[in-house]
């Protein structure tokens, strides 16, 4: 007799009490926190698991959740160049420098990104390739009307290299609240600290977000070689020369003409 009454009370309370901002909680976990690059590295895939959990006093909302998961690599400056004819020869002429753009950017989502939220919100969190902030540095000779060409070319080339990608409907809900997606990291990814940001939307409202870290590093021989080349470049060069001379000499001895 009393039970339905309490339930109604709870429902009314939930309805009238101002919504707490974090009624929905988003938790994610990565299949690996670290990607190690070794001599047999040809790219890999990371799996991202997650769960949407609700507060007990939050009522179930109508409609489905929309999720976007953004994997970003360390920032870098990139120069995009355009060839032009000069004395009959094709050479690089105009260029545009983009500052602090992600070296890797992959976004997985449950639906098409434009449908999840409005432009302002997507721009703010840089969700989706069209919402990436590609800031231009310094002075540029490129006329304003052509700047978009460089921007588009940059995004296109990055996508061709497999470094930028957008995969809609690639997040799979295993249960009502558990989801999973995988993001492939190509062989040419730069090393550094990556972030995996997950965003939970509903009806265009950002309900919750969370961030996880992923590090990509060379290990073993690859790391040793790379560090040597960077930090002890003279000795690295010397070793290369000695190795080459030894190989050449050895071949001369082995194949010595009778």
């Amino acid at each position, binding site marked *: 007799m009393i039970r339905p009454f309490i339930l109604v009370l709870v429902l009314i309370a939930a309805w009238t009490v101002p919504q707490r901002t974090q009624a929905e909680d988003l938790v994610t976990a990565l299949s690996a926190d670290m990607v190690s690059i070794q001599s047999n590295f040809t790219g890999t895939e990371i799996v991202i698991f997650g769960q949407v959990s609700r507060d007990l006093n939050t009522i179930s909302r109508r409609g489905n959740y929309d999720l976007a998961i953004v994997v970003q690599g360390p920032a*870098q400056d990139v120069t995009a*160049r355009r060839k032009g004819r000069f004395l009959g020869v*094709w*050479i690089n002429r105009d260029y545009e420098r983009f500052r602090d753009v992600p070296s890797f950017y992959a976004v997985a989502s449950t639906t098409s990104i434009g449908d999840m939220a409005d432009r302002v919100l997507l721009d703010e969190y840089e969700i989706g390739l069209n919402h990436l902030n590609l800031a231009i540095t310094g002075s540029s000779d490129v006329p304003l009307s052509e700047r978009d060409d460089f921007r588009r*070319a940059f995004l296109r080339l990055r996508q061709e290299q497999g470094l930028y990608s957008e995969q809609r409907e690639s997040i799979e809900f295993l249960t009502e609240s558990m989801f999973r997606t995988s993001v492939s990291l190509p062989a040419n990814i730069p090393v550094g600290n990556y972030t995996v940001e997950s965003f939970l939307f509903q009806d265009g409202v950002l309900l919750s977000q969370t961030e996880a870290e992923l590090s990509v590093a060379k290990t073993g021989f690859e790391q040793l070689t790379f560090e040597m*080349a960077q930090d002890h470049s003279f000795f690295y060069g010397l070793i290369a020369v000695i190795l*080459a001379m030894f190989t*050449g000499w050895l071949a001369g001895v082995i194949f010595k003409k009778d």
Partner: protein
Amino acid sequence: MQLYLPIAEIPVNMFLIFGMGGAVGFLSGLFGIGGGFLLTPLLIFSGIPPAVSVATVTTQVVASSASAVVTYIRRKAIDLKLATVLLIGGIAGSAIGVLLFDMLQAVGQLDVVIALSYVTFLGTIGILMLVESVRAIRRRRTGAPVQTRRPGQHNWIHGLPLKVRFRRSKLYVSVIPVLGLGAGIGFLGTILGIGGGFMMVPALIYLLRVPTSIVIGTSLFQILFTMSAATIFHAMGTQTVDIVLALTLMIGGVIGAQFGARMGQNLRGDQLRLLLALLVLSVGLRFAVDLLLTPEDLYSIAITKGAGT
């Protein structure tokens, strides 16, 4: 089998690289050349970044010339004094080359300079060799006497000051052209990823009139050490020497060279030079086509700062 290159930061097919090294090694054994001018373009065309290709081939040239230098030392067919003077010029030229290389890379004009230089030098040398070898073949067919070196014949080079005697080469010549030649070839070699033997040998014969018996050994000796210096300069300056790539190439190269050298013994010198001329010309032509035809993609991107530079 895929192999990840620690400096180029891309995986490559190890057998493909090994095969390229072997094929170029075969040709270098056949023609008695370093093969850098073939190997660098091959690597560039197969997707290795131009900077890594050039720097790494300088290391590969060290291996291929070391192998041959041993033989020439044994035969005492090297003018060490001449080689040392050439080498001094070569190291200076190489250092300037690396500085320019770095600068060109920063302004995004490295690729076009490499391509233009290849067109110019391979085009010129290729045509000269073609003409010379066709003449030689004709001469042989008609039985005309072969011109030999005439002692006492002088050109403007022999009028320059600071003369030094190079006993082994039976030369009394100014050090200026010798240093200049070394510097020029060291400079080009460093920028283009070539040993430059195919330029050095004719220059020594026709400009300085070094006896042909000593020319190849001396040229190889100078290339060995200039390219060693270039490797170290590249490692320090551009940091684009990929030791894994270099090792794969050089192992393929030294093996291929042995087979090439054996086959070369069965071919006539003028026929070899004709083939080599055609080969040189076709590489130059390939670069020319790339420069002149409208590129498939006008845009390109390069990382200038931060991760992955």
